[in-house]
């Protein structure tokens, strides 16, 4: 049982991603297994969020080369790049957004019931029954209690008028309900105060536990407090230049990226060039 679960793998190989005619990812290799926690760190603009979007299938991010493969418990290999975002969700991939979108007029509970039904019943046809209301409500209530969320939250419109902290907790709630196999958390700590980060960190640990493969994109080590990474990856200039254990995250948090930049001059040059391009583009400001 355990061995079959451990084999579930998300494998990213030589991934190149462009937005418009700007190449942002320049050959990313990353493999993670269900049950592992990975930290992805790197300076601003190094391509971390782009990796999250590309894995989830954002239509604005063109994969020009490479592959993303999901190996199931049965050992089947799925080509993730051929899937629409909703199909990716249904095979167990989840992205917690750095800036979640608001959907005015749509209640959290309604949205979550739809999403949860679709993800848990991948064969459901549109218009077919949703998860039974009673069971769904019960589960949602329990998860919200676990995350110390006000029950009123379920009645609010999705991310509409949410504070930064509420948005991030709503993302974690969604993760809790959808129970993905692989979750990418894109700067779930950004914009939160210390206590909120601690709460988020704790919640991720409680919910993810050993069940999920978690990739935490972060600048800080606070989010890692309760989620000690098995692996730490450093991204620079659109590729992963170094992988280590939890001590690498601690080092980067303490000393910054100077050592990395001097040790990987090619990637550092790419990073500088990418930053230059970004400045030229008027929309980037």
């Amino acid at each position, binding site marked *: 049982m355990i061995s079959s679960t451990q084999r579930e793998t998300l494998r990213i190989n030589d991934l190149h991603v462009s937005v418009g005619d700007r190449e942002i990812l320049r050959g990313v290799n990353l493999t993670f297994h269900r049950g592992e926690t990975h930290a992805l760190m790197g300076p601003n603009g190094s391509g971390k969020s782009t990796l999250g979007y590309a894995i989830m299938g954002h*239509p604005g991010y063109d994969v020009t080369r490479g592959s993303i493969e999901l190996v199931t418990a049965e050992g089947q290999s799925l080509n993730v790049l051929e899937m629409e975002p*909703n199909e990716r969700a249904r095979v167990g991939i989840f992205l917690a957004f750095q800036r979640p979108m608001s959907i005015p007029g749509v209640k959290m509970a309604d949205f979550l019931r*739809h999403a949860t039904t679709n993800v848990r019943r991948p064969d459901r046809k549109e218009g077919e029954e949703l998860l039974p209301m009673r069971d769904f409500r019960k589960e949602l209530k329990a998860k919200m209690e676990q995350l110390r969320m006000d029950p009123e939250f379920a*009645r609010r419109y999705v991310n509409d008028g949410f504070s930064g902290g509420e948005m991030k907790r709503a993302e974690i709630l969604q993760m809790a309900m959808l129970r993905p196999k692989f979750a990418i958390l894109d700067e779930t700590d950004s914009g939160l105060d210390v206590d909120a980060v601690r709460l988020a960190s704790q919640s991720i640990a409680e919910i993810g536990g050993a069940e999920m493969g978690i990739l935490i994109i972060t600048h800080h080590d606070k989010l890692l407090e309760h989620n000690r990474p098995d692996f730490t990856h450093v991204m620079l200039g659109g590729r992963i230049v170094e992988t280590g254990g939890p001590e690498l995250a601690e080092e980067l948090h303490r000393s910054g990226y100077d050592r990395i930049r001097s040790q990987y001059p090619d990637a550092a040059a790419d990073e500088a060039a990418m930053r230059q391009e970004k400045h030229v583009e008027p929309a980037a400001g």
Partner: protein
Amino acid sequence: MATELKPDTNELGLGEINKYDFRNAEKYIFKSRKGLDAQIVHQISDMKDEPQWMRDFRLQSLEIFNSKPMPRWGGNIDIDFQDIFYYIKPSDRQGRSWDDVPDDIKRTFDKLGIPEAEKKFLAGVKAQYESEVVYGSLREDLSKQGVIFTDTDSAVREYPDLVREYFSKIIPPTDNKFAALNSAVWSGGSFIYVPKGVKIEFPLQAYFRINAESMGQFERTLIIVDEGAQIHYVEGCTAPMYSTESLHSAVVEIIVKKHARCRYTTIQNWANNIYNLVTKRAVAYENAVMEWIDGNLGSRLTMKYPAVYMLEPGARGEILSIAFASNGQHQDAGAKVVHAAPHTSSRIISKSISKNGGRSSYRGLVKIEPGARKSKSNVVCDALILDSNSRSDTYPYIEVDEQDVSIGHEASVSKIGEEQLFYLTSRGLSEAEASTMIVSGFIEPLVKELPMEYAVEMNRLIELQMEGTVG
């Protein structure tokens, strides 16, 4: 309970709504020849055995109709008035039980779910098929309290004093070309009188069905809500799809007396070849409240601007309108509020959605007359455009002849964003489900004002409209 969720079944709605497009063979008691002239008007009046004053009123209205030019604003009206049947009588009497209604017509309303809804949550029903009301009911306790709910033809015979006092006083035939047309050839519609202090808890519903091709339906509704009384009236409308256009041109007049309340809800889902050119107007007296909730989903062209004239202090008018225009449709909908007394207030909320080449327009008038001090009006109109072929326009008119007033106007136009769609699809929703969810959210502030059964119905209709939107 932590959550409050919408029901996702259509248990109480108006029936199998994706089955609107069916038609019955034409078996009529009487069908006028095509075209419009004095002879046709006489024929209608003869069939109804009307008093002379009504016949004279019709003939005079016909002259007004002929003398008035077509409106030069709004949408393109391409109607050959001589190519329409103005009067079709489907059965020889109005049923008081559904068993008295001819079989094929009864089956029609069964399919539309009316008898079912009647059993579950309505206080009374009128079902109009072509030109005549073929079924009518009113809960006994209400009729005992003096509530009148009948078709307008019967009202002319049975309540001549009430009818003569109010009929065409709010909307005279001179008001506009289509009001004149209705006045000349009107048939059917609801007549309601709610006596002083009577509060009707459950809605009264009318359902208008056009079955014949090239048909003109011209119902005439008159509602009088006496002092302190309350009513919620709901109308639904459907028709099968033909290759030629049909015309629906109603006149609705409402009098809301001191401290009374009236809510009038329309869920219009006409086939996409119907011209829906309707005049609706209410007058509200001291502290009275008039609310129009106007859902326009069907028709080829709708031109409809429900109005509230606030004639005495404290009167309030609210108009909530939803318009959905898809391929080949133009919804020119809006609202009109006239503040003719001090301390009156009004609110207009309009939400329009355009997709697949559809066009929706908000056209509204806020008028504050001299002396209407301390009046308040607030207008919010939001448009959502689903693709680049579709169009949305806003024509807000504000006329203020008084200094001491407060007027607000906000308008917004938005498109469904790629980022919103991506967010929802990343949670397992298909693009179509995601778009539908965004649209439902967009109209939610209005749908939540509806009784649950109609909210469910409205959401179902939106889902139907959204089908096939993406991919």
